[in-house]
């Protein structure tokens, strides 16, 4: 099944410049229906308000880890514990690059993991691995 590039994507990062970078890279890949949040709790509110999947819900979450008050890992756990949200693809994009971080994220149910700094090709390849080719 082809990837719908009109799907809603939620990007979460406490650095506004990083939100802008990811938004621009996604736009270059053809994804323009993008919402932003600057921490896990704000992201969770948007997710609960819009749901996951379908025309109104989010088709992908791309989140940083190190944020306050709610981290990306806490957000991931909340998402996976929520019956209505648990299926949404979730990519972690973070500078946390120790193996224990990757393991913890995997155990929490992350779909894929990108270490900062990253390039557009890495972002695309991880999205393809999660969503399918586009």
């Amino acid at each position: 099944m082809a990837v719908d590039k009109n799907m809603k994507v939620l990007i979460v990062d406490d650095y506004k410049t990083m939100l802008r970078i990811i938004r621009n890279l996604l736009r270059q890949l053809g994804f323009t229906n993008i919402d932003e949040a600057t921490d896990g709790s704000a992201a969770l509110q948007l997710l609960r308000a819009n749901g996951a999947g379908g025309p109104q819900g989010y088709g992908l979450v791309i989140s940083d880890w190190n944020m306050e008050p709610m981290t990306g890992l806490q957000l991931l756990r909340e998402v996976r514990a929520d019956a209505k949200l648990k299926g949404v693809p979730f990519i972690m994009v973070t500078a946390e690059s120790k193996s224990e971080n990757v393991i913890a994220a995997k155990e929490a149910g992350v779909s894929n993991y990108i270490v900062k700094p990253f390039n557009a090709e890495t972002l695309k390849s991880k999205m393809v691995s999660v969503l399918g080719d586009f």
Partner: protein
Amino acid sequence: MAATRVDEGLAARLEEIRREKGETIAVAEVAEVVESLLTTMTGDLTADDVQLYKELEGLARYIHAARAEISSINPGEIQSDLLPTAADELDAIVEATEKATNQIMDAAEVLEEVSGDVAPEVADKLSDATTRIYEACTFQDITGQRITKVVRTLKQIEERVDGLVRAFHPAGDDAAAAQPAAEGRAKAAGDTPSDEDLLNGPQSAEDAMKQDDIDALLADFD
């Protein structure tokens, strides 16, 4: 040697200090206790007593010298002036890199917009170039996180220095301890700042003079 009675007095003093200060006590009080111990050693002294006396005398001298040396480092200045200034400078770096990153991306987004108006092969090149610019801009996030870690470390150092200042400057001596050395230097040199005092680096946005103010100030000399 009436050591027992005096030892009891010393023991009581030590207990009092332990009760009041816990494990952290001012160095001056340690020196005071050592000196008190020395005064207990009167009367006929054995060879062991003499050896102990020498050891204690050496310890007292060491404590006095260490106190003088650490005071001369001026931990008050480190705590009140140098560490906060370093943290402010690092915050200013984060702010400046964020501003620059946004300006770079403003320009890159304009390039992307005009790529629709040019030949497809040129548009592809522009698109590749802007992608590389966006990728390069991720440095700001990494730099910001690293600097945040450094600022956190500085705060920990500040807490340790705070403990040092408390240990070496009894209550009431804090104002003298915190007096910045730069102020002292300026006083010593009179009202005219030295060349060294003029080297302050870039100022924060709040403290920096605007160009118009500088122009007006220069005009006053005409």
